[in-house]
């Protein structure tokens, strides 16, 4: 599918992070912090490219760029709705790829685009991308919680109300999560 992967450029990773923020409903600055030693955005970008190929990824990023450059400016929610084709009952392969990207951020696992589960169950994940992908996955933040064996909370946190969703990185201001 691809040759030896070269690290994606800074601007490409930032672009992917911006699209990921719109799709997941999280703040871009949370998806890709200024200081980002883990660099999930870069890891995830390269992972998706390894799964679907550079051409498919470039096409998706171009679609995102076109949407984010529209005037009047679209909200992240509008961009996500368009990319995900929420008004269509038969989403295109590109929209299915966006679904997989959302699942990747939320669960740290890769699901083949377009492969559906049955009887209300999710399809089987192909792989957990990495330990960090799992512990940093967004589902924990949305639940205002933390994964087993990995917590930045202080002792006794369970006796207090959890911090706000904004604190956990959720973009509650402009339609992140309907």
């Amino acid at each position, binding site marked *: 599918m691809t040759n030896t992967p070269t690290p994606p450029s800074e601007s490409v990773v930032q672009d992917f992070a911006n699209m990921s923020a719109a799709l997941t409903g999280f703040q871009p600055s949370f998806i890709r912090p200024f200081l980002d030693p883990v660099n999930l955005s870069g890891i995830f970008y390269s992972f998706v490219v390894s799964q679907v190929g550079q051409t498919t990824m470039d096409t998706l990023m171009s679609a995102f760029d076109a949407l984010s450059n529209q005037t009047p400016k679209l909200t992240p929610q509008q961009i996500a709705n368009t990319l995900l084709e929420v008004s269509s009952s038969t989403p295109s392969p590109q929209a299915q790829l966006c679904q997989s990207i959302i699942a990747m951020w939320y669960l740290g*696992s890769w699901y083949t685009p377009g492969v559906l589960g049955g009887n209300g169950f999710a399809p*089987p*994940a192909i*792989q*957990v991308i*990495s*330990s960090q992908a*799992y*512990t940093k996955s967004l589902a924990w933040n949305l639940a205002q919680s933390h*994964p*087993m*064996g*990995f917590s930045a909370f202080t002792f006794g946190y369970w006796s207090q109300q959890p911090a706000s969703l904004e604190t956990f990185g959720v973009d509650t201001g402009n339609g992140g999560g309907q």
Partner: protein
Amino acid sequence: MSNGASTQYDVVIIGAGVSGNLIAKQLGLAGKKVLILEAGLPVPDSREEYVNNFYLALAKTPESPYPALAGRTGSTESGRRAARSVEASHTTRNCALHRQGARPQLSGPGATVDRDS
């Protein structure tokens, strides 16, 4: 296992899990002679690998953190259970006698018999 084979025990407990150990402790405190049989691998100094295994497991089951034992290759729960029962039936690897409140000896190969203390 020669020592163990000639020793009489009041109770033999299969599996040095939480329940087995707690029961063994109480029996030991009550003066019973107890043998614990455990088919699992010795607990490593650092359990970081266990945590990592858990994070990377597709299905987070109670057994996901632990390394697969030889012969336990079943991918289904029933397969794993069957493989484990086979192992348990001929295990001589980690045996521990828990007696009079002595701590169970769960590491190291071969039978560990804590005869008296």
